[in-house]
């Protein structure tokens, strides 16, 4: 107890904080590198160009396929149009996204981190620029040690300029999702765009430049919660990028291991070339086993396979494998892998259920809505002729892009009960007709009066029903009629 005073932080601050070790990932090629390029083009292609896709919704609605219209309080995704009160669709999407992450993890570890996470994708793009401008790992290490010459300044300036351009384009694409893209591009180019657009472009330019250019693996290791959650979710049956120590150890140079073999001693396949470490974007030595810092991008697999091919040994010393299989190999059993396991089945089933619920909700989504709030004070009013009147605030929503007339009927009241709408004169057969403008809501005051001579219960359940006078769409909601 109390011993901490002896090693106070003032004496040796270097013990408590460490500088991030700069990582110089080397270029590699192979299957996983190709997959990563493919996904990079695909995902960034969607991100940068999706706002420019048009979708015709008629003259009164925006013609952009994917648009979050914050001012108009609408979100558009091709044929889907969401109102703010329907934000539960987003909840459903988030649930599916979380479960998809779990499913990916149960099948093959950190697929998200290694291939799809924006941090990984943009870092990959930035590394490519860095490599094109400053050269590969060795040149970059040398350049860092060099004194500041004109050549070094030129390379650095070019790199940072390109990085900032990419970051700026990233921010620029972001704001296009919130405004008509062609219009906003024109406004941005002529400096007529709203200030908020420039502010958001500035914020995303800064974060992209900082996170993909400088923070890189630090974000994954120190800031992101997913590695911690992933570590708790994985098991010995999930595929992970794994070094097969059963085959690789004892490691040693080709010469050393040949000498060992000649003496009849065990020698592993790992030639200790450090290629796996040098291509790693997070600076991990995969041979130390599964670790939090490893984003499982598979580049070490490519690097190792290339070396194994060169030295004439079978590939796959590093590969997607499970903990279980390593143990089985040590015990001399056949490796097994099954994608159909209880957890993958359960995750997939839950995704399917949530997806089906969302699809059902979307297909049966109503284009009209009614909400009723009963007056709280007074709950009812007794009239001079003994009849009882209840007041309701009724809000009607018209989600179609043309004016609609809704016929209001209150079911559950005795015959000859009176239904009036303040400010609405049109009535057909005792039922008021309420016009509601295109793509908007309207709140009206509805007065329901019991018939003369009718004895009403203290509380009568009623149903407010609106019917589109042309299309016949019916929407109902429940409420009560109160009496003394």
């Amino acid at each position: 107890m109390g011993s901490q005073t002896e090693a106070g932080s003032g004496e040796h601050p270097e013990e408590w904080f460490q500088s991030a070790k700069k990582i110089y990932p080397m270029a590699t090629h192979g299957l996983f590198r190709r997959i990563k390029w493919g996904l990079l083009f695909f995902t960034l292609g969607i991100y940068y160009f999706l706002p420019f896709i048009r979708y015709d919704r008629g003259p009164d609605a925006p013609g952009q396929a994917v648009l979050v219209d914050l001012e108009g309080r609408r979100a558009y995704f091709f044929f889907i149009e969401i109102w703010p009160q329907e934000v539960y669709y987003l909840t459903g999407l988030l649930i599916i996204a979380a479960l998809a992450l779990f499913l990916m993890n149960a099948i093959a570890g950190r697929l998200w981190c290694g291939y799809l996470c924006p941090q990984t994708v943009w870092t990959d793009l930035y590394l490519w620029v860095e490599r094109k401008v400053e050269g590969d790992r060795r040149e970059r290490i040398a350049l860092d040690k060099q004194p500041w010459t004109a050549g070094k300044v030129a390379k650095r300036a070019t790199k940072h300029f390109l990085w900032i351009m990419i970051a700026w384009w990233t921010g620029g694409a972001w704001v296009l999702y919130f405004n008509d893209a062609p219009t906003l591009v024109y406004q941005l180019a002529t400096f007529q765009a709203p200030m908020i657009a420039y502010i958001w472009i500035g914020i995303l330019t800064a974060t992209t430049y900082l996170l993909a250019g400088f923070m890189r693996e630090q974000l994954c290791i120190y800031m992101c919660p997913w590695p911690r959650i992933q570590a708790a979710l994985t098991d010995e049956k999930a595929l992970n990028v794994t070094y097969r120590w059963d085959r690789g150890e004892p490691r040693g140079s080709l010469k050393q291991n040949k000498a060992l073999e000649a003496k009849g001693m065990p020698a592993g396949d790992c030639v200790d070339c450090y290629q796996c470490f040098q291509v790693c974007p997070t600076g991990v030595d995969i041979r130390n086993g599964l670790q939090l810092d490893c984003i499982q991008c598979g580049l070490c697999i490519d690097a190792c396979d290339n070396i194994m091919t060169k030295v004439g040994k079978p590939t796959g010393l590093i590969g997607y494998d499970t903990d279980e299989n390593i143990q089985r190999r040590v015990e001399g059993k056949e490796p097994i892998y099954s994608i159909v396991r209880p957890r993958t089945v359960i995750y997939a089933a839950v995704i399917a259920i949530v997806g089906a619920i969302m699809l059902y909700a979307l297909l049966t989504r109503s284009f009209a809505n009614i909400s009723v709030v009963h007056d709280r004070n007074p709950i009812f009013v007794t009239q001079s002729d003994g009849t009882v009147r209840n007041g309701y605030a009724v809000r009607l929503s018209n989600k179609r892009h043309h004016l609609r007339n809704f016929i209001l009927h209150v079911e559950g009241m005795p015959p000859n009960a009176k239904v009036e709408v303040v400010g609405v004169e049109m009535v057909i057969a005792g039922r008021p007709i309420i016009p509601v403008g295109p793509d908007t809501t309207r709140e009206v005051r509805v007065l329901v009066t019991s018939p003369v001579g009718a004895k009403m219960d203290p509380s009568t359940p009623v149903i407010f029903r609106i019917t589109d006078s042309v299309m016949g769409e019916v929407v109902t909601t429940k409420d009560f009629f109160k009496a003394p």
Partner: protein
Amino acid sequence: MADIHNKEVDKLSGVETTGHEWDGLKELNNPLPKWWLYSFYICIVWAIGYWVLYPSWPMISGYTSGVLGNSQRADAIAAYEAGIEARSEFADKIVAASLEEIKADQSLLEFASANGAAAFGDNCAPCHGTGATGFEGYPNLQDDTWIWGGSLDKIQTSILYGIRSGHDEAHVGDMPAFGRDELLSREEIDQVASFVAQKAGLEPKEGIDLAAGETLYADNCAACHGDDLKGIQDVGAPSLVSANYLYGKTLDAITAQIRNPRNGVMPAWEARLDPATIKSLTVYVHSFGGGQ
């Protein structure tokens, strides 16, 4: 114990310990990245910048105001004035439009209802209640019983000039004090009260001469309250066959009101509220449902 020259390494994890030990538990020294520390320093610098730019430190009287001169009070006042400015467009339209036009126009009706609800809560609710259902002696504005009339124009007149308010245009119509001023005897008052009570659906006093009451009613009351007891709004004489009585619907209350009547007062609002607010209130009260 910590000794920087002889660092202790945890055998299981291969990580140095900090030398901190609590009952055998040792803390591993996994150093924090330096950028994390720097971001802490940046926050400190940010805070100092904030102190300079914005109001921050409390003083004995007042506070440091900051060089930007930012004030949430000024912001709130500006927002309030901007709200009035934004409303003025509708307020002008309300003043220009007739009451019927306001009621027929969706946007004007919505504005008048919201504006009227706010004004009602501030000015009318103390007497008429927050739900406009009134109290004994303060009329219920929700029902269809109107003493001075329930049309848009008549409601507006009542609001503008009040009832017995002293304003030149105010409604004036006093119920005579038949008992206090000895216009009728105690027995006659009982008789006419029982007659009215019976007509209103109440039990008359037992053994009372209702025929005498009817005659007394015809001689003294019918001029204002009408032969059919339904009242005359022009003179503010309420219906006596309504379900709703201002001062209570019991035989005793009717008797008391004949003997020593209360004549309630409503203030004139013409000088207190602007025309747009009075029109909004009129439409709001009319749209409770009892409006005629």
